[in-house]
């Protein structure tokens, strides 16, 4: 740490939400021109802290000082006036508005949109982040959307740029591009607060790191002097057991076979599927990588039966054509499904865990006897899932929304794994889940495959797929690459596919044509 006055100094920040203490006497010092990492698991209080730094939340106690001067940030506009810019994890963009309108909204003052558009073009070209100001945001890829957020921060000549998990939505190549841009921004003297849980990235680009756990600062260190393992240990508080997994290739006949699946997305901003071929074999985990919004949701809906295929033979499950069958038809053939959204899709938030177990298992688990619900039976099932997957909760049968993200995710994954399905299709199994829960879920998926089930994992987390998948395919603009054995597969090759190389021309994203 240099002796210079920190650009931003937060001391003793406390923020409570009801009984939960999200930030507990947090101290953070960001030096001028420094790339400072804020590390921590989900729920450690990182997002709360940066919202306070950006004026979105007011701390219950503690002070902020900007260049040694005590300040209070009542609104993001005040933060922007000081020179603080923020790129949100879940983009704060307006889909139906144009790029220029989105940027104009983030600028203070009354500059007309046309003038903003001109300035936007010059700034975006200067930083090598090309953008068309007249395009509507919903037509843009995730990487382009992030570009908008970065450019609109840069247009305010920031002194401190806050980036909240910026690489979680990018391909490896896009990540490299982002790092080059950040290096440039840093060279111009702008400090960067970089929030991430990707430790290798942090070790590569950050000068200092502050590590949060359960709302408290547990360490401040130089990440370049630490190993990824030591950083992880500080984040989690204990050693994270790596998943036991040796890639295997099964020679059994595929349990799920998809042939030439094409589908129009019901969502006007969605991605249409075209000509998808896929085989999932017993004993293997097949992974589908891809940047968000490339047809993952539509593929999951088609496989689970939420959207029916045009022809029944397109999807063959256990030797039977099921393209016209609903989700219970497929469940009865031995398939199980865990969608991406745990609240609202995998589980009904206000229903109890036993009711949620009933919703997923009424066709297959024997919860319904002569038209009546077997309540003790479903409660017993909940107890088994809770015990097997270490779901932490208060009462015996709470509402799904009362569980934390990681515990609910363990519940919805466990609910279907314990059925011993012959096929499990799971989307984003560890999205927004703490490292301990993620490790448990990944191990359960591997164990399920080793016990002879076919497992399909759709994930945007490439590290996760390399950790557990035996074969991997990439989805891009609604098309799927052939699955290749993970052993010996280069990350760069997958990254190129995620960016669309190798898919051939003439297949513009369907929603562009619409």
């Amino acid at each position, binding site marked *: 740490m240099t002796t210079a006055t920190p650009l931003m100094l937060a001391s003793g920040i406390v923020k409570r939400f009801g009984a939960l203490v999200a930030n507990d006497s947090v101290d953070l010092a960001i030096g001028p021109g420094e790339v400072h990492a804020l590390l921590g698991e989900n729920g450690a209080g990182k997002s709360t802290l940066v919202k306070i730094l950006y004026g979105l939340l007011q701390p219950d106690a503690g002070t902020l000082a900007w260049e040694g001067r005590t300040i209070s940030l009542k609104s993001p506009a005040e933060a922007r006036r000081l020179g603080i810019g923020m790129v949100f994890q879940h983009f704060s*963009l307006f*889909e139906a508005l144009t790029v220029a309108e989105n940027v104009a909204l983030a600028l203070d003052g009354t500059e007309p949109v046309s003038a903003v558009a001109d300035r936007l073009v010059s700034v975006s070209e200067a930083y090598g982040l090309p953008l068309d100001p007249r395009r509507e945001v919903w037509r843009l890829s995730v990487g382009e959307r992030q570009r908008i957020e970065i450019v609109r921060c840069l247009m305010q000549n920031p002194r401190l740029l806050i980036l909240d998990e910026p690489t979680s939505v990018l391909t490896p190549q896009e990540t490299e591009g982002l790092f080059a841009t950040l290096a440039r921004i840093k060279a111009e003297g702008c400090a960067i607060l970089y929030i991430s849980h990707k430790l290798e990235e942090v070790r590569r680009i950050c000068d200092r790191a502050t590590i949060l756990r359960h709302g408290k600062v547990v360490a401040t260190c130089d990440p370049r002097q630490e190993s990824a393992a030591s950083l992880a240990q500080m984040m989690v508080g204990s050693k994270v057991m790596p998943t036991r997994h040796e890639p295997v290739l099964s020679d059994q006949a595929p349990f799920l076979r998809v042939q030439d699946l094409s589908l129009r997305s019901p969502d006007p901003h969605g991605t249409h599927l075209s000509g998808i071929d896929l085989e999932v074999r017993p004993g293997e985990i097949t992974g589908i990588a891809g940047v968000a919004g490339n047809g993952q949701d539509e593929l999951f809906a088609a496989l689970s039966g939420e959207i029916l295929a045009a022809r029944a033979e397109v999807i063959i499950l256990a030797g039977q054509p099921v393209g016209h069958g609903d989700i219970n038809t497929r469940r009865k053939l031995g398939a199980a499904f865990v969608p991406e959204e745990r609240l609202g899709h995998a589980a009904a938030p206000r229903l109890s865990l036993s009711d949620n177990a009933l919703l997923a298992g009424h066709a297959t688990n024997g919860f319904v006897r002569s038209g009546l619900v077997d309540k003790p039976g479903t409660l017993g099932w909940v107890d088994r899932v809770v015990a097997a997957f270490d779901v932490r909760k208060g009462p015996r049968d709470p509402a799904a929304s009362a569980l934390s993200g990681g515990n609910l995710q363990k519940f919805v994954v466990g609910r279907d794994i314990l059925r011993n399905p012959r096929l499990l299709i799971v989307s984003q199994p560890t999205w927004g889940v703490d490292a301990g829960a993620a490790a448990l879920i990944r191990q359960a998926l591997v164990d399920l495959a080793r016990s002879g089930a076919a497992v399909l994992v759709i994930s945007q987390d490439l590290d996760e797929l390399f950790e557990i998948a035996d074969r991997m395919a990439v989805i891009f603009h609604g098309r799927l690459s052939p699955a290749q054995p993970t052993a010996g597969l280069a990350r760069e090759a997958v990254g190129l596919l995620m960016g669309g190389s190798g898919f051939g021309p003439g297949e513009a994203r369907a929603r562009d044509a619409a």
Partner: protein
Amino acid sequence: MTMFEAILLTIITASTPLLIAAIGQLVVERSGVLNLGMEGMMIMGAACGFAAAILSGNSYIGVLAAIAAGMGMSMIFAVLTLGLAANQVASGLALSIFGLGLSGVIGAPFVGARRDTMARLDLPVLSDLPVIGKALFGQDPFVYASFALVIGVWWFLTRTKPGLILRACGESHASAHALGYPVLKIRLFAILFGGACAGLAGAYLSLVYTPFWSPGMTAGRGWIALAIVVFASWLPWRAMAGAYLFGGITILQLHAQGAGVKIPSQAMAALPYLVTIIALVIIMSRRGGQQSAPASLGVPFVPDR
């Protein structure tokens, strides 16, 4: 005055209250709020406007009272849906029912006074513009106000920063909040503007269109105004087209009845509503089910503090 001019004049008077109410509702919905209380706010405007005009003897005071009544009604809605994050559909429906009842109470003493006041009330509004009025088919200030509203709202929404911010709140209140915009305050202003427009539209009904008070005299025009906003796919100029389409058909079917067209009068009277439904269906299917509604329409916003 030719027959054509007479028909055109009546079409304009039939369309103007719809246009004023629809343009107000359009602004409300663009900010992400669905206020189904149009009918209640409108009839409160009609009742309070008429009562105030009679008591004061001045139609302009009546107009101001109508605007205040509409805004007061919309304030109730704002407290419920913004302050308490209540369900917007339920609150709006309650507001409509409440307004219909309360207007009956307020208007009750004035039901008998209609014949005497009709001529007296007619004068100040219409005679204020004798020269311009004659030149432009003898229109009243409300018609000009409705055109000014369309132009003003169009300019505000598409050309100004506050208009952009209002649209942003309707598209994604979470993002607007993250950028530091006061979503609830912006929606409050939009709701009050919608209430003022509804009150003004009500005043037009009781002070100009049929210058007397009768309970339930809005006769579903508030609901038609809501449909016009959807019909217009939330664009001001199309709202004008929708209002005049509906008003035009209302008048033309009256003339068709007068000309002795052999269709039951009840069926003819239902024609404007039928045409509105058909037009909505055609527009929605032409768009392939694609929504052009503000993405946050009807979703309550609760900032985390």
